[in-house]
């Protein structure tokens, strides 16, 4: 998650490729890492393959793993090919799948490894080339064409072998630099003990970023072309808090960042293992909750003292699996997160697809952000949300669960969802399935119309959750995903703050709680402002809760209120930002120091 500064990658100055270079990207996972570069790219795999033979068992194991990976890839391809190109195209890849386990290939490779004591890659090449050559030499034209299938299989298995080797060859204590990675790669790297990750592409809400945060691996993304500017072995500093990366740092820069690293580690170590509720310096409680979705993240709830899950983005599960999960699969995940959050609760946001989050239906919308998304899809297609409602109601016997409706624009959307929930509960009751019939139902406040007429919505919803990311986009009319204008995006624009203030006022008048779950919630610079404005709960990515908690504990409620009042008087976003940062620097200098580059 970026702090509310969205720093664009700087264009290279005059660089001779020798001296120190500073590049600013988006910090997505906090922490400081200093170490030699491991450049992870396609070319890197070939050299890794030239390692010698260790044992039959080792090579047989590598081979089996490469086959399994190849099977997974091909299975996915078969599915996609069938969906997009029809049954027939799927068959060709299906044949390749069958080839992987065919005795003429599989057993032959194992025999080769054993008899000739060669590495798996060599055995695979030898066996497949022999088969392939037989086909290629045939008089029959159709048979000659089949040779290509064996080339495909050989390349796939070899690539998976080399990847497996390359990954297992990664030294711990390196910083990985790549153009892109998958979340699975991040998990693998983390297990190998890499110090940090830096990517040319990617954004703060991508699965890769979420995974890096979940695993505590400092990460910076969106560096444009770093992979072509560094060499393996160069020293690299990653500052996941400020988003800055320094290549080939001078001794002075190294010292500055080592000091920052030490301060960050001290901050991490100093907070107590068992957390009481978060509160201001004068004892006013503010619930600090976490945004999580994946099992890897569940332990973070306890580690960072989150009081439950303030935002569970259910569509993440669907996007990661590439398909809808059925009711039982969803129930299992929801039940487990409720258990992980106990004794606190979990707020489940109903699937929020559309906009920039892919749909299985290929609708081409001219204006997806203003289009068919969130609750609009759910009310048009109740069959999409029914299994989810049933799953949540069933899981709700494990702990306090709340439902959050995304992209609400009209009050009767709330009524429609309530109706669907009631129907789901009635079904479950009739079936004799244990469930909670009544769970609080709240709404995302992200469309300006809702913030402006918040009092009317406050009468119908059980709680509000302010989504500042989208609220800011709609209010300013700026698409933060659009590179041409993203640098104009300012969540601290007075208009946005006004809408937040209105929403809070309406919520408190109606006696319902209001939380904030946009990226602002995790930005320690904004914490006093939000508390002063009357937000009851902040939900952020777990690693950021530490700094937020620290700032909270050094601020009194009257101070926060005064700061908020002054912020709302400012004429523009930059003035607000300066005000907040100066305040933090004076009040909690150690946290302020964390948020800026050390050099």
């Amino acid at each position, binding site marked *: 998650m970026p702090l509310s500064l969205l720093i664009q990658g700087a264009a290279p100055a005059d660089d001779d490729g020798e001296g120190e270079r500073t590049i600013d990207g988006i910090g997505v996972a906090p922490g400081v890492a200093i170490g030699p570069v491991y450049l992870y790219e396609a070319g890197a795999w070939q050299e890794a393959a030239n390692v010698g033979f260790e044992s039959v068992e080792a090579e047989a194991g590598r081979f089996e793993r490469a086959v399994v990976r190849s099977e997974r890839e091909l299975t996915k391809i078969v599915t996609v090919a069938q969906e997009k190109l029809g049954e*027939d195209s799927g*068959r*060709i890849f*299906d*044949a390749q799948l*069958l*080839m992987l386990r*065919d*005795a*003429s*290939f599989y057993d032959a490779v194992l025999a080769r490894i054993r008899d000739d004591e060669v590495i798996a890659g060599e055995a695979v090449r030898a066996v497949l080339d022999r*088969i392939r050559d*037989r*086909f290629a030499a*045939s008089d*029959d034209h*159709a*048979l000659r064409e*089949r040779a290509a*299938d064996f080339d495909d299989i050989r390349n796939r298995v070899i690539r998976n072998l080399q990847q497996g080797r390359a990954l297992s060859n990664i030294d711990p204590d390196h910083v990985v630099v790549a153009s892109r990675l998958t979340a699975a790669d991040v998990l693998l790297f983390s297990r190998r003990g890499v110090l940090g990750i830096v990517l040319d592409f990617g954004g703060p809400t991508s699965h890769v970023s979420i995974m890096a945060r979940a695993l505590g691996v400092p990460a910076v993304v969106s560096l444009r072309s770093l992979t072509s500017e560094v060499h393996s072995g160069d020293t690299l500093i990653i500052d996941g808090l400020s988003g800055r990366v320094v290549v080939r740092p001078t001794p002075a820069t190294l010292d500055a960042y080592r000091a920052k690293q030490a301060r960050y580690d001290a901050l991490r170590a100093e907070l107590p293992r068992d957390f009481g509720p978060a509160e201001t310096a004068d004892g006013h409680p503010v619930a600090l909750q976490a945004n999580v979705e994946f099992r890897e993240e569940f332990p973070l709830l306890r580690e960072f003292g989150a009081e439950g899950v303030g935002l569970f983005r259910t569509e993440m599960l669907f996007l990661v699996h590439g398909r809808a999960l059925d009711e039982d699969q969803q129930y299992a995940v929801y039940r487990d997160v409720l258990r992980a959050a106990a004794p606190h609760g979990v707020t489940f946001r109903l699937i929020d697809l559309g906009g920039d989050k892919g749909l299985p239906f290929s609708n081409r919308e001219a204006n997806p952000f203003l289009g068919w998304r969130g609750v609009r899809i759910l009310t048009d297609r109740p069959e999409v949300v029914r299994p989810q409602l049933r799953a949540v109601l069933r899981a709700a016997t494990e702990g306090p669960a709340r439902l959050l409706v995304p992209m609400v624009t009209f009050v009767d959307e709330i009524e429609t969802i309530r109706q669907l929930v009631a129907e789901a509960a009635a079904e479950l009751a009739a079936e004799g399935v244990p469930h909670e019939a009544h769970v609080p139902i709240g709404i995302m406040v992200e469309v300006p119309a809702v913030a402006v007429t918040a009092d009317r919505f406050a009468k119908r919803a059980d709680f509000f959750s302010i989504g500042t990311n989208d609220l800011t986009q709609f209010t300013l009319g700026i698409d933060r995903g659009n590179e041409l204008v993203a640098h104009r995006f300012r969540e601290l624009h007075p208009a946005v703050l006004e809408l937040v203030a209105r929403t809070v006022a309406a919520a408190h008048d109606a006696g319902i709680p209001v939380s904030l779950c946009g990226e602002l919630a995790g930005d320690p610079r904004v914490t006093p402002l939000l508390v002063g404005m009357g937000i009851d709960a902040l939900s952020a990515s777990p690693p950021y809760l530490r700094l937020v908690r620290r700032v909270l504990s050094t601020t009194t409620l009257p101070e926060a209120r005064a700061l908020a009042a002054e912020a709302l008087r400012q004429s523009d976003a930059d003035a607000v930002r300066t005000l907040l940062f100066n305040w933090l620097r004076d009040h909690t200098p150690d946290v302020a120091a964390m948020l800026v580059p050390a050099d």
Partner: protein
Amino acid sequence: MITREVTIRNRAGLHTRPASMIVREASRFKSDFYIRKDGYEINGKSIIGVMTLAAEQGSRLELTFDGPDEAKAAEALEAVFERGFGEPI
């Protein structure tokens, strides 16, 4: 052991798609399954083996089944060939 004689009915012959269809179907059964063409015999459950057959439309093949469910296997596989693998004849 059961033997069946079949003919390749479809225009495109025994290319990769029918090959994978045959192997998938045959693998459902426990019995061993061999295909013989022009005196050359291959394991019908091996995709690589079946691919080497390159039988064109009109070719005659001998199918051999040996095992506890050979009757069922024979019936199923014969049907796959009879259908022309679901392709244009």
